[in-house]
């Protein structure tokens, strides 16, 4: 029994990852990112331009433009706004965000849902299928309750970045309570190369130990190694980052456990952020 479960999990993982990332875009080991041109702004009537893509190399758009039409903007007062001037090129997506309020903006995409795998007449079945979006209704319809070898996983993915006009604010830093999230202890638009930054990781709103976090500074093609920073969250969900100098960083965090709500038997979360670290 144990062996079977393990086997199922192993077979299931690539499909799960593929299905989760930006809907139909197959990414496997590729990274998806939303990169702000600048993160700390002064003045009024300001806009920020963003690049977004899916690629192996951090912030080098050379693979595919991803699908970012569902990017949302949470404004400093908590209200939602849209992105503007969305353009999809061969390798890169770009869009603009107008900063109408002072404070910190969260630019993000998030998805979560149940994934199921089972067997029917000896054939492997899964929900959602390739290119299919999860919905509670679709799940109910597609997955037979007493299916053979049924494995149900609760999976979430969040990708975000932050920009601040004027003084930083924290309304947009509050976790939603769904999936794997980063809760800043150090404000994400107040990061400096010479100062350690502290972040807390929460799963469904609760701090979790054992989140695996990787950070890579931009400009990997101008150096011979990735110079990754790898960290694991402690029993309070905390990690402390000592930066490899100023620049924009790709942060990726992953977590998995078996504390899922029924009918799921496991839950997993992926979190990606782009953070800018300024020189002291």
């Amino acid at each position, binding site marked *: 029994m144990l062996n079977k479960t393990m086997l199922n999990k192993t077979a299931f993982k690539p499909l799960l990852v593929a299905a989760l990332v930006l809907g139909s875009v197959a990414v496997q080991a590729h990274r998806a990112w939303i990169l702000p041109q600048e993160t700390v702004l002064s003045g009024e009537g300001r806009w920020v331009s963003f690049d977004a893509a899916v690629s192996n190399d951090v912030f080098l758009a050379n693979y595919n433009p991803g699908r970012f039409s569902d990017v949302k903007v949470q404004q400093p007062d908590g209200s939602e706004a849209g992105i503007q001037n969305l353009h999809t090129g061969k390798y890169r997506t770009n869009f603009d965000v107008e900063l109408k309020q002072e404070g910190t903006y969260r630019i993000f995409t998030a998805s979560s849902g149940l994934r199921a795998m089972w067997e029917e007449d000896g054939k492997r079945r899964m929900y959602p299928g390739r290119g299919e979006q999860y919905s509670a209704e679709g799940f109910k319809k597609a997955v037979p309750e007493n299916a053979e070898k049924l494995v149900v996983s609760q999976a979430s993915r969040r990708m975000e970045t932050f920009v601040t006009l004027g*003084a930083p604010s924290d309304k947009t830093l509050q976790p939603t309570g769904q999936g794997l999230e980063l809760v800043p202890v150090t404000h994400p638009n107040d990061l400096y190369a010479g100062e350690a930054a502290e972040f807390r990781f929460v799963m469904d709103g609760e701090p979790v130990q054992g989140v695996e976090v990787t950070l890579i500074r931009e400009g990997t093609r101008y150096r011979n190694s990735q110079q990754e920073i790898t960290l694991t969250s402690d029993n309070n969900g905390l990690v402390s980052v000592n930066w490899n100098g100023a620049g924009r960083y790709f942060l990726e965090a992953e977590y998995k456990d078996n504390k899922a709500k029924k009918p799921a038997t496991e839950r997993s979360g992926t979190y990606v952020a782009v953070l800018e670290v300024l020189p002291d």
Partner: protein
Amino acid sequence: MKNALLPAALLLAATLPVQAAELNVAVQLPKLTVAEYHKPYVAVWIEDSNKQVVSNLAVWYDAKMKNNEGEKWLKDMRQWWRKTGRTLTMPVDGITGATQGPGQHQLNFTVGKAPLNNLESGDYTLRVEAAREVGGREVVDIPFQWPPAKAATFNATGSTELGAVAVSIKP
């Protein structure tokens, strides 16, 4: 009798030669031989021993551009922006002024009066930050103690965007 004398004494004190404590800052902006020169944005402020801003003394920026577009580059004075600039509403009376060109610039302040206001006894740092469009950025720090036993001048020199900086204090 005593009561009648008091207003006279106050009047006398007010008309005596000024003995007010002073803090004067000299900032030299170097002449730079560059293809495209823009006058730098400059901020001058004082921090206490906990690195908290106690006085914003001067901010020179382009306040005359239409739609306040000159405020766009205030954040390039990164230290000042982080410490205090981002919480201010520009322009600030008695603090903000137009950008200045190369040369020696003298700023005089009186203790007890805005924008310097009162300084409690302690260790302070005078900080001067300059940031130039299509150019560089530099911060020069000068530590001093308040109050000084007697008039004193402290000097420091920048290496790129700032020349000689001096703070003269008089108890």
